[in-house]
């Protein structure tokens, strides 16, 4: 647990920002509330911790008001709406719990931020399933790691340092092979001690074809093409052979960066390829994600409603529709008539532009091109209040601690207050 080792100095602080739950940070909190990461920071984590505190005053139509007035106004707007939309859902477990309680009470739609990205994996889980592992299995077991698609080392800067370039129980760092299928890694991913990264280069948009051919090769099908996405099929055949020969291969991807239509089909191809490999050897997938509380949102929605996101409560029971209940669609089509945007981790995670009355329960310091109807600044979980958040691998819930007291409410407190005011 986070320990105060000197005035204003905390050690063993877990990061709510990095997606991999690194909990070895040293964090300094100054008397004025400013936070800096002293040790073991990375660009993602530092950017999360070090956001300026900002103005703590709630606002209605841009004017400062007491918290109670902002809560009342939010309740009025939500109650007046035919179909309120509770979106963003970027919060700790208690924040998501509160949002679901409010959504159930109001008959709202509840959705998470960047649902498209989350669904690229979730639709595969719901259609055919997968075989995956967690970070400690990668660290201790993986002798072949295939990074599929680009941007992984910049999105998850400490993934390699903490899980790949270290000796594990069953494999030493120097024995691991790391192959990049797609992009050559940026500088951050090239620092592997003593080893140049192996790269099978292609544009990410060609990954569906590349993965389909790799799956065919793993299954032992003959492939007529000589190259796919610019990669010679012979090299993919070597990769297939390496995966079959590995004791424990891991294929890593981040669906958030697979921005093409129906990218879930590429995820599915990847997952079926992994199942195929497990006929004879061991291999697992590791989807990277979980930043800004996205795994937390889908987990809590899952256990409270049965569905991970895009849930409509308007008929009195949760109804899941991954297409019709999308935030973007409800806003574009004008079917939602009030928006509550929940974003407690990142003051830059602002609500989507919309004309409908918008209530923002957002991390203190959030700025808007146009003031929303209501803005209630809240504390960040893991800085301003304790809480829980999920890591990318879904299994491990991280206990977050309070590092400073600057008088900010938690998103759960604010949303519960709104519900009580209805």
């Amino acid at each position: 647990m986070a320990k105060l080792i000197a005035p204003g100095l905390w050690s063993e602080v877990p990061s709510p920002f990095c997606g991999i739950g690194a909990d070895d940070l040293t964090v300094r909190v100054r008397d004025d509330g400013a936070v800096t990461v002293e040790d073991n920071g990375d660009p993602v984590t530092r950017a999360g911790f070090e956001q300026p505190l900002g103005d703590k005053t709630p606002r209605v139509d841009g004017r400062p008001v007491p918290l109670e007035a902002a809560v009342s106004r939010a309740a009025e707007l939500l109650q007046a709406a035919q179909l309120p939309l509770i979106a963003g859902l970027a919060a700790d477990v208690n924040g998501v719990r509160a949002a679901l309680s409010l959504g159930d009470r109001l008959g709202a739609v509840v959705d998470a931020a960047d649902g498209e990205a989350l669904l690229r994996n979730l639709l595969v889980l719901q259609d055919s399933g997968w075989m995956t592992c967690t970070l400690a299995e990668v660290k201790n077991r993986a002798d072949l790691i295939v990074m599929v698609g680009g941007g992984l080392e910049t999105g998850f800067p400490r993934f390699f340092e903490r899980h790949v370039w270290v000796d594990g129980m069953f494999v030493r760092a120097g024995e691991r092979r790391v192959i990049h299928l797609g992009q050559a890694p940026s500088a951050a991913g090239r620092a592997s001690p003593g080893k140049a990264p192996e790269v099978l280069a292609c544009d990410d948009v060609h990954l569906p074809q590349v993965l389909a051919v790799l799956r065919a090769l793993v299954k032992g099908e003959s492939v007529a093409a000589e190259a796919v996405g610019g990669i010679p099929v012979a090299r993919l055949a070597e990769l297939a052979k390496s995966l079959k020969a590995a004791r424990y291969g891991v294929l890593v991807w981040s669906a958030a960066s697979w921005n093409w239509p129906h990218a879930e089909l590429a995820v599915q191809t990847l997952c079926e390829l992994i199942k195929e490999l497990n006929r004879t050897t061991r291999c697992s997938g590791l989807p990277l994600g979980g930043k800004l509380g996205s795994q937390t949102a889908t987990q809590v929605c899952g256990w409270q409603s049965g569905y991970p996101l895009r849930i409509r409560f308007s008929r009195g029971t949760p109804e899941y529709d991954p297409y019709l209940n999308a935030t973007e669609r409800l806003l574009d089509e004008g079917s939602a008539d009030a928006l509550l945007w929940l974003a407690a981790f990142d003051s830059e995670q602002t609500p989507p532009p919309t004309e409908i009355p918008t209530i923002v329960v957002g991390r203190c310091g959030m700025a808007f091109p146009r003031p929303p109807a209501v803005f209630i600044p809240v504390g960040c979980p893991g800085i301003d209040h304790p809480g829980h958040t999920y890591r990318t691998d879904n299994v491990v819930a991280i206990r977050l601690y309070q590092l400073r007291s600057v008088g900010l409410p938690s998103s759960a407190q604010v949303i519960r207050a709104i519900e009580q005011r209805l």
Partner: protein
Amino acid sequence: MLIKLKGGTVYDPAHGIDGQVRDLYVQDGRIVEPPPGARVDREYDLSGKIVMAGAIDMHTHIGGGKVNIARVMLPEDHRADPQYHTERLRSGCGHAAPSTWTTGYRYAEMGFTTAFEPAVLPVNARQAHMEMGDIPILDKGGYAMLGSDDFLLRMLRDGADQKAVNDYVAWTLNATQCIGIKVVNPGGISAFKFNQRALDLDERHEYYGVTPRQILKTLATAVHELGVPHPLHVHGCNLGVPGNVETTLKTITGIEGLPLHLTHIQFHSYGTEGDFKFSSGAARIAEAVNANPNVTVDVGQVLFGQTVTASGDNMRQHANAGHAHPKKWVCMDIECDAGCGVVPFKYRDRNFVNALQWAIGLEIFLLVDDPWRVFLTTDHPNGAPFTSYPHLIRLLMDRTFRNEQLSRLHPEAQKMTTLASIEREYSLYEIAIMTRAGAARLVGLEDRGHLGPGAAADITVYTPDDDVERMFAKPTYVFKDGELVVKDGEIVHVTWGTTHTVKPDYDRAIERSLTDYFDRYLTMKLDNFIISDEEIAEDGRGSVTVHPCGGRG
């Protein structure tokens, strides 16, 4: 407030009360002696009603990672069983993998007041407690899974002494806020990570050289020496494999008299006789259970229909994934701790194997003599959803009904079971033993499962009905800690139960080796792994109840 429950016909096996008319008094959530001269604030006339303690499910998958994978995976199952929002109730979904709210409501509506999640992966315990924290009304608790975790396997490989293992087991119970220790396919979940596809009782783990027999013996000894009331909870080797009855019998005799609970034993009672090379081993299993008083079992009854199997045993789940219905499944290797496998499944009465599984479960129920040592489970949701318990109770209590159901099954399966010739019908007293008094005693709940003064006032009242399925499905009243929560099978008030735990003492020196191990191999700090009481209690609803351990070390 003093409540009087007047003139009910009471079944309270912990006190030998078998259908006697009694008055019960409840004050401040507890059953009390009638206070002389005190004014009764509320009286319920229970003449003609049946009164039992609230029921306890000692093995049901209600919270934690694999349950939530099952939920998220099965939108099509939820759609058929919606739970509507009311002034009192949160919306949700039911059937095979119900939402947390619905889990609490549906259990309470059947007169259950306590349930235990039997497969808490230590690294996932935080999630299990958060999910159970969102299950209303019920008391709950968990069994922490050990036996495929690398820390223990390293200890065994290195010949660590029993005392050190005991310390590790005690530390795990404390750190995970659990009440018992479970082992699943001992060593097998780890072996699967090394690409071993089977691990029989005396087979060696290819990397560690350790056998399941060693793991079972060491853990059963640890649990016993620490004085943890609940015996080691064992999901044995070779689940679902024809012929596994031999392994199960060897497991029973091999434990050499130590207390052992064999869970969902139906799945471990298969022979290889007959044209289909699949037969019932129930008679032999029941005989062994009857002969070994250190052994308890729960059945894991199969009932027909769609469900989902969710297990820590990813070795066996992967082997059975081809039977998935619908065709989707998940297997995970988890954090040098364990694993999980989630495979949706549909049991069909016209399928020979499924039909015989149904019969094998019932044979075990009916052939084990002592109702204190056999427990009513479907291994929810693996054999069937928990909502089928009233139907299962009717199968046990009503021979005519049972044989009528049997006559509809796959004809070859009917030939392979002795069920039609078994005359036994469970009595209400025996049902009260297996679902109340026995379960409480098995888990170590001294103040639950009975109706004596001092007990928590978890009380279920039924109106007798010729159809016991209907009777058990809709109690007339359910009281939780003295508060009326269900009337005529419907929730009238929502309360929050406690989390039952044990916290045996241990030598803190074990934390030094654990700290080194966590820093070197795991992905979080030891202190961040440990779950504090505040985490369970800070929402203002939850609480931690610690039950005593009588150390025998």
